[in-house]
């Protein structure tokens, strides 16, 4: 077996297509792994199946092919080992800030006392700066505060794997920046294993240890695994002064603008056991470029 914490093997997802016998293959031959405590972002254009991969990892969707193995066990359904932060805060509107978190904590540790559940929940809400608004309902919070509650809830259940589906997509740029830094702080304290979907290159450079790049769908693949070789702790204000910043950022942007498309048409001919090429744009020499993705049969 494998020594990786999370191992995704030959994952594929096909959806039946109305009016056609052939199902649409959103993605196939997806192989990658994540180590414990690693922060991994995945970027790709809309429709490449990022959210579907995340749902499979969450156990909320089933792959048409392939396996997900976490900590030596195949993921077959939702469990308390996977926590998800959804794009639209997804708080229960009839519960207060505090109860949205205690609801989750109680489900995770049913045997805990009321006081302990409360203390644990308050602790995480304070970490995201919401200690003052425990009794407010989601409707009385700003968009940023709601998303913070979602973050506190997901971290509070201390999942083995934290999945984030574009958690900041719906926020304005200023709020997004503030919450990204809060996320970094809380992550630095807990060292959760994180798998995060984003559309934002700068966000991935700020947050991730590694960025997975997907080609365009249908028949999408994970083409590259880009190492973000920038020391931590990182800060938004000084990130662009880091020597690694521009090489990484340019590499990601270049992929998304040009190669996501060209590789997509080439990908169909590749080996199904294809693993993404590991790239370190900061030290390109340490990882000599492998032959082109297309191989002759």
């Amino acid at each position, binding site marked *: 077996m494998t020594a990786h914490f999370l191992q995704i093997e030959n994952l594929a997802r096909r959806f039946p297509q109305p009016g056609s016998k052939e199902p649409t293959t959103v993605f196939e031959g997806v192989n990658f792994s994540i180590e414990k405590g690693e922060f991994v972002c995945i970027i790709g254009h809309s429709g490449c199946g990022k959210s579907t991969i995340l749902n499979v990892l*969450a156990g*909320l969707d089933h792959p048409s092919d392939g396996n997900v193995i976490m900590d030596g066990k195949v993921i077959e359904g*939702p*469990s*308390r080992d*996977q*926590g*998800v932060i*959804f794009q*639209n805060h*997804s708080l*229960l*509107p*009839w*519960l207060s800030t505090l109860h949205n978190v205690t*609801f*989750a904590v109680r*489900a*995770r540790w049913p045997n805990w006392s009321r006081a302990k559940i409360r203390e644990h929940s308050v602790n995480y809400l304070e970490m995201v700066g919401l200690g003052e608004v425990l009794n407010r*309902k989601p*409707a009385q919070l700003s968009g940023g505060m709601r998303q913070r509650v979602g973050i506190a809830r997901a971290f509070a*259940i201390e999942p083995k794997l934290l999945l984030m589906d574009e958690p900041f997509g719906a926020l304005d740029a200023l709020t997004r920046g503030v919450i990204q830094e809060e996320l970094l702080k809380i992550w630095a304290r807990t060292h959760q294993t994180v798998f995060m979907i984003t559309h934002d290159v700068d966000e991935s450079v700020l947050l991730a240890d590694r960025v997975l790049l997907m080609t365009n769908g249908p028949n999408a693949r994970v083409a590259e695994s880009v190492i973000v070789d920038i020391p931590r702790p990182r800060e938004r204000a000084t990130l662009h002064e880091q020597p690694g910043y521009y090489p990484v950022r340019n590499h990601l942007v270049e992929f998304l603008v040009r190669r996501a498309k060209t590789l997509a048409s080439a990908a169909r001919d590749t080996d199904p056991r294809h693993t993404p090429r590991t790239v370190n744009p900061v030290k390109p020499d340490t990882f000599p470029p492998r032959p082109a993705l297309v191989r002759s049969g």
Partner: protein
Amino acid sequence: MNRTATLKLPQYSGRNLTLGLVRGADTVRRRLQYPALGIALLLALWWWGGMVIANNPDTMAFASFAPGPTLVAFWDLVSTGAVWSPIESSLQRVGLGLVWAIAIGVPLGVAIGYFLQLRQLTHVPFQFLRMISPLAWMPIAVLAFATWDAAIIFLIAIAAVWPITYATAHGVQRIDPMWFKVGRNLGAGPYHTLRRIILPAIAQDVFAGIRLAVGVAWIVLVPAEYLGVTSGLGYAINDARDTLEYDKLAAIVLVIGIIGYLLDAICVRLIKRSSYREE
């Protein structure tokens, strides 16, 4: 009133209190003026109708339907306490009918809202049954139940069950699928999903259904009490008609209207309390 000027006034507490009272009275006046006007218009219409009836030789016998005699009879009913006994019997019947309607309608509505197949299966039969006037069941109810009371409660329940069922089902269908996803992700089983997600999510719709049901039940009650029973507001109306006490009859109609209004107000309060949507 010049608001900018009042803001610049020195902070004399007495003065502020007066201003506060004036402003409070102002909001009360603004909030009540149209409802008060509505009530006044209804009374005027009633009074005018009474005049027309009293001045027509053919209908003169019914002149005590007018507001004057009615309000006297109403005061008589209230001050002697005679009004309470029919109210009690009627409320008891409506209450029991509603309890049955809720006990059947809410679980049925949750199931219909949740399972598409059940929704399709029940659609035609339920719409068919729903469209039958509850009063059409009267002969069957009388045959099927041993007591008149039970028959009336059955009629109320069968009238009230549909709005509750369909409001509940509609509420379940409106639940944000995200909440189920969140629940599953947090490891909620079927019981917890029902208790912690479905029920709080639909409470508002259930109460809205109950509000409609109360209206229907209260309407069905009176004709149902024309049946064999010897108590309740419907019976009191029939009784007053038989003894030609038209002022008393009109007074009981007034009582029915007032209680109906109060029941509706309670439901509105419940809907507001269970509401979480931003509106």
